[in-house]
């Protein structure tokens, strides 16, 4: 019997599909999803802050 995919797998698959030509966005979206599962809203804030810091520190 073919195993049904769980929601986690489905989300990642959908995100890949949604951003199939935009690897960076796909990666960011997936990392946000995974981080949320681990650390909740704080995880999302952490990712956003990291990205912002990277943008603001760029010379």
């Amino acid at each position, binding site marked *: 019997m073919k195993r049904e995919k769980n929601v986690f797998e489905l989300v990642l698959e959908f995100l890949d599909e949604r951003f199939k030509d935009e690897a960076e966005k796909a990666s960011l979206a997936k990392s946000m999803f995974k981080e949320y599962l681990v650390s909740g*809203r704080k995880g999302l804030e952490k990712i956003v802050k990291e990205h*912002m810091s990277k*943008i603001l520190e760029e010379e």
Partner: protein
Amino acid sequence: MRLKLEEIEVGGFKAFSEIKKLRLNSPVVVIVGPIGTGKTTILEAIEYALYGTLYSVKYRKELKSEDLINDFTDRIKIKLALVDSSGRRYVVYRSRSRDSAEALLEVDGKIVEKSWSKVDAKMRNILGIDLDGFVRQVALRSREIEDIIYGTDMQRSEALDRLLGIETLESIFRGIPLKLVEDKLEMLESELDFLKARLANERSVEEIERELEEKRKKLLVLEEEIDRKKKALIEYEHELEKLKGKEKEYERLKEQEIRLRAEIKQIKQRLKKLESFTPTEPADILFEKAKSSIINGLKETMLYKDAEEVEKIEFSRDTIDSALQVLNAKIKRLEASLEDLNSELLEVNYQLASERNKYNLLRRKLAEVEAELYTLEKNYNTLRGLVEKYGSRENVRKRISLLEVEIEKLEKISEINNCVYNLGRSVISTYLKESSATCPVCDTELNEQQIKKIKDKVNLIKKEDVFLKREKLVKNLNGLKRVYVKLSELEERMLRKNELELEKKSLENEFDEVSNNIEELEELVEEVNFKISRLTSIISSSSSIITKLSRIKEISELQRELEDKKRELSEVLKKIARLDFDKKYYNSIEEKYYLTMNEIDRLKAEMANLEKDLENIKEKLVYVKKLTEKTEKQEAKIFKLKEFRNKLLEIKIAFREVQSSIRKIAIRKIVEKMNDIFQQMYVHPDYSELTIRIRTIKLRREDREYERSIYEIFAKRNRDRRWIPALKKMSDGQKRIVVLSLLTALFKLTPHNVAFIILDEPTPSIDYECRKAMIKLLAKVEGVDQIIIATQDESFKEIVREVPSALIYELKHTPEGTSINLYSFN
């Protein structure tokens, strides 16, 4: 690999202090008991054994791990045995106190994991579902069911999202902190505005660079100009260098010329002045006059040696200096003598004044003595008159003594007469009064005759003037006494008269002597005055002549000096002429030299200012460039941050889309399965089919508009073949069956290795038939090999009666806690 529960041992956990052991190896296990007996504790013990925690601890945060430990023990002990479809046996041990936690996993009697977290992970892997999924799809609680049945559209939708496992996507959609980015963007934009405002106050980089270039060109021009001037300066310097030696000599000679001319001018002026005082007589005659005058003076002051010295001096032009020196020295000597004479005159005048004082004093004293003598002469005449009248003082004294004796006698007679008189008058008085009287001496009676005698005697005494006699004598005595005193006094004065006569004589002698002295001193003063006058005259005339001689000498010297200076000047002028030096030319070169030097300085200052300007412009350029760069960077950052924000927005929307897609897929599958289960579970003919519809509503949160999908379950009513909203129109029991159908469908659709389903109080409000059908159906559902039901509903004992191997545990309250008994139909 489908797992079923086989056995559980639980102690020290929530309601159970003692270890309770329950065999679970049956397709249907019913745990029946009243409220608070620990039915849910058994179900939670299964969850705890499998996942090492509870959903209410990990997700809902309703409890802490410590709260799970029973109040009468200090350690949780749970042992759960499971068996899979291939017969493999899994045993999980959990033991936890407040300080420590131990776990163990055995597979077929073999320990495979020892640590708590590893056991958790291993079990999650074996079960193929995490705690969240387990609670949503395996251990179905009445709370979740009730949220779906009785909750608002939103609560129901959220509960269903949780059941579908897509609520995370909703949370991510809401949780992406766009505001964080937008706040930062706002801040950066405000900073950018500030930078732009600063930049607006400055000129453009191009303008500044243009100005910089202009200034640089000017600087080059100035540098060239300075170089030209420097070359000219070197030429002037060389020319000046050549002329410098001559110029030095020329200046020295010119200086000498000026000095000599000035000196000549001064000498001429002096000569002119001296010539107006030049004496008419020749110098030798003047000299002889001075010499003779000084010699006279020296001789008059008895300085003969000095006079001889002067006589020896001979006058000539050569010896005039020494001669004048000697003459001056001698005049000094004369002046010293004059000084002595003045001192002597002063001394004599002082003596004269002193003698004159003495003279005046003696004259005053002599007058006083003469006046006193005149008075004493008058006293002497008085004395002589008194002696002629009263005799000598001795005679007067004797007469006084005689008078004093006589007065004494008269006083005694007067005293006796007084006594006799008084006595007689007393006897007479007594006789006149009493016609008799006694003698006061012999105390005999006195007769009339005797009384008469007494009366006569008294009258005789009365007539006799003894008193007057005495008074007369006393008067004479006093007169004599006064004469005596006067005589004594006058005699004494006569002694003083003699003394004064002697003194007068002495004073007269002294007076004569002082008068003589004064005469002598006055003569001496006259003599000294004469000498002084004479000497003064000599000194004055000599000095005058010597002054004239000195002038003659000075004129001669000055004339000589004038000749010398003129000669010297002539020499200097010749030297200047020989030097052949053009001062004007030299000055013109020097002026050009200094002008050029000043010009170079001015140009250098201008250059320094220009360089300073250049530095300032460069600084300004750097500043404006930096500001521009900063502004550009800021704009770039803002651009990137906006890109990031848009990216986040896109991702946010993507999560919504993913959620929607998963939802659609899940709902399609669920509706199919749900209908299968419902049609078997619901035994009545009024409803035949179920479906789930999704509609979208718009919400506003944190100033943003969101879309939200709302689930609505519809049931098809057989009577009119219409779809009606199941959770609004159906009864409570029907609703529960609908929801149980939904949950069972979810269980079936979710990929995992769990073959059991746990129902906590699943069927309140459901009628007996439906309950029975539900249990039967669940037992038949593909993939559900085991049903664990915890309920207060005693009817379940009857419902499961038809399942032969069903296990029913009855839980009862006892004083020692809960008792668990396996129910038997027998």
